[in-house]
């Protein structure tokens, strides 16, 4: 799984950080998303999928291996 984030779309809600803190963080100076793990470990995949599904700004894109 590969993850990408769109900082311009991000609204700083922080749902991704609550769900997958090993993969996502928020910048200290404005709360915008920081991607910690662009290729997260398999045990993180389910949290990352949930984070992408609930992102209110649709700012998280997943590229799953076929």
């Amino acid at each position, binding site marked *: 799984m590969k993850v990408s984030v769109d900082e311009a779309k991000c*609204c*700083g809600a*922080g749902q991704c950080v*609550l769900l997958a803190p090993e993969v996502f963080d928020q910048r200290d*100076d*404005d*709360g915008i998303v920081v991607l910690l793990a662009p290729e997260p470990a398999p045990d993180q995949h389910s949290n990352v999928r949930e984070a992408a599904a609930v992102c209110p*700004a649709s700012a998280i894109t997943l590229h799953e291996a076929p």
Partner: protein
Amino acid sequence: MSPSPNDQAMRLPLPTDGPLEAPAEWQELRRKCPVATVELPSGDKAAYLTRYDDIKALLSDPRFVRPTAADGAARIAPEGAGGPVANGDASLAIADRGEAHLRWRRHIGKYLTAKRVTALRPGMTAIAESLVDNLVDQGQPGDLKATVGFPLPVYVICDLLGAPAEDRDRFSHWSDAFLNISRYTTEEARESYTEFAEYMSALIAAKRAEPGDDLIGNLIKDSTEDGEGLSDDLLLNTGMGLLVAGHETTANMIGKMVSMLLADRTRWERLLADPSLVRTAVDEVLRFDANFGFGVRRYLGEDVEVGGELLPGGTTVVCSLSAANRDEQVFADPGEMDLTRAPNPHMTFGAGPHACLGQSLARTELQVVLETLLRRLPTLRLAVPVEELQRVEGLLVGGLRTVPVRW
């Protein structure tokens, strides 16, 4: 605007069979009339959206923002009702669009990140514990809304702003007067605003002299370092904005959450047996709440296509987030409350660039209250039959007048 059946505009709020029930019209509207014409309590007309995808697309479109008085958009409440907040009064000096809004949003956003909110958890738990003590001390039956739901979010906001604990109840009163359109006159709302403004001016002056590690103190420190310098007006309105956005909404949600979970007590028992479900349960009650208010308004500054229909510029749109939250195209068995539902992409906090900035705070408050109640009052139950709960229409969000409980 779209033709509605018999050219009779439906009136908001739509009637329901019970205090926690969803209006029967939503399902019909989503299927047959996703862009309906409605009449607001002010008498003004608006386009009413009920489909998840339509609402998500509109709220995600950065061209459209909340209407202001200057737009000549449809108003919610009749002239004279409500305080300075009711009709988008220009006295709220926070820019609501464009670069200036984005800058303000990011200034505040850094204090509401998931990590900062998580750090507030122990303080919130202490507040929840002391409010549950008050409930128990006052004896049975107690009103969970007045004793726990109403004070908790305002106490949390006071901590966040750096206002001393002894002033919390004054904040509660002011906030209620700004927002409670049925209980206070315009005159009373304005008086409260004046008192609040005086109080906040003194607080801001004190923080400028000696900035503490709280939101106002940090905003002052940061903006001085940036060389941008936030004005006293902007700081005052930031405090006002936090109360407006974070008090009535969360206070009512606490009452509705507990009522929904106790209405079918097997839900409560499931949480007692497995408190790890609190996280998904909170999001499910947020999705399931059918009394969340009219919805989010957007003013169309230009033509836009919604659900295959062209809406002309000048239209005021009301997005029913609660109707979207029950859209069967997105949620399996939307009429069932599933405490384990995940992912749960409900839109109770909106979507797009203006999605609720305080949603981590609100979720955490709701989780903390629920955890505290499950731990302290496992025998909690409603003291009246569900159908006797009474709805109130708030300005921003609906709620229940009281939530009588026993334990």
